[in-house]
């Protein structure tokens, strides 16, 4: 038995795939898979929502949120707001909800539609609205969310997507990528929801006052954190479309329906 010096062929134990092309393939593949997953989760939620009647919703969630400590109606504005809500509801024929109004002690102006039929307004919102028309639009917007069952959607989607993602990917180093893709996909859906709620809100304002003046006041004053982020990308990541875009939508809707855009603004009781 003799020794013969030989050198084996180079590259047998490495794969001949270029790292950059592999990176691109993997990133695309994962993004696609995540988008499919998110869309599938949304579709499932749509189907489920159709089967959850508002009465069931009020029973299950109503008890959770109705107990509101510190909501003594010492604020005269709350009574006026509740009355306004009642008037707006009267324009919504198929309203299946018994809606309640509650005040949240919070500085920044905001409003929430909560499963079970409660609309929360922050004290900051009550402080900042300048006319009843503005408040009417905000309330109408929230009514729009209830009409589309958006609040349930948000709950369901968030649950499904985060559960499946964490079960599948959880803990691996590359989980940031699926998260980013999910956030982007979800933002797309969320903007659509907001636009729909805006449309319903302004329709209610028109029905109540006969004109839509003042409805955009809220948007005009929103602290535009996106002021210096002018490009589409950053605003796309935010779940609320940039205020200017929403204002434009409102006016084009008004123009389409030939609603009057000027009129008297009703002040709020102080």
């Amino acid at each position, binding site marked *: *038995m*003799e*020794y013969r*010096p*030989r*050198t084996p062929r*180079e590259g047998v*134990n*490495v*794969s001949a*795939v270029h*790292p*950059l092309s*592999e*990176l691109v393939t*993997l*990133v695309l*593949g*994962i993004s696609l898979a995540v988008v499919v997953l998110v869309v599938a989760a949304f579709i499932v939620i749509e189907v489920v929502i159709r089967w959850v009647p508002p009465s069931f919703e009020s029973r299950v969630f109503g008890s959770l949120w109705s107990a509101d400590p510190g909501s003594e109606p010492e604020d005269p504005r709350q009574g006026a707001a509740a009355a306004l809500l009642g008037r707006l509801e009267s324009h919504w024929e198929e309203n299946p909800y018994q809606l309640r109004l509650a005040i949240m002690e919070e500085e920044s102006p905001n409003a929430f539609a909560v499963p079970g039929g409660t609309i929360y307004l922050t004290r900051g919102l009550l402080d900042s609205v300048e006319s009843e028309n503005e408040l009417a639009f905000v309330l109408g917007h929230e009514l729009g969310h209830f009409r589309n069952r958006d609040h349930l959607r948000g709950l369901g989607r968030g649950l499904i997507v985060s559960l499946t993602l964490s079960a*599948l*990917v959880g*803990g*691996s*180093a*590359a989980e*940031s*990528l699926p998260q980013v893709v999910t956030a982007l996909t979800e933002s797309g859906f969320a903007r659509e929801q907001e636009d729909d709620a805006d449309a319903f809100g302004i329709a209610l304002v028109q029905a109540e006052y006969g004109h839509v003046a003042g409805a955009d006041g809220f948007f005009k004053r929103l602290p535009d954190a996106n002021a*210096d*982020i*002018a*490009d589409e*990308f*950053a605003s796309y*990541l935010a779940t609320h479309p940039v205020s200017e875009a929403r204002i434009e939508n409102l006016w084009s809707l008004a123009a389409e329906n030939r609603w009057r855009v000027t009129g008297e603004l009703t002040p709020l009781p102080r």
Partner: protein
Amino acid sequence: MTEAAIKLGFPLLLLFGTYLIGSAVEKAHYREIRIRESRSRRFPTVNFRTPPKSWQIVGAEMVAGNVVISIDYFKRFIAGLRMIFGGRVASYESLLDRARREAILRMKETAFERGYNAVINVRIETSRLASSNRKGEGTAGVEILAFGTAVKFAK
């Protein structure tokens, strides 16, 4: 604008930068390995226990060569993505190939420097060094150990 650019740009830059540097380091290492391998061609390295009868062995000693290689950010990122889909992790294969050849070369060179003529009964062991952060899940590096018995021929 700047916020979005920084959020997305920095990881991308890091990825691309480590890819460039990593592949340059890898190419240089491979070149060096090939040179050393061609120089040590005449040095038999085998993994059987019984040496050929024609060898008259007058001395023997265990020798070892080891190397610890770290995994660069780019390779780790790709591997992380790959572990979602499964399949061959190409980014690690070249790393381990280099490490193994380096370890074997070091073993050969150690034996040669000490005046031996061949190495028999070569064994190769691989182990992962877990990183101390991240609960031991991350990989600080991979160690490859090649060891065998160096033998000296009678002249």
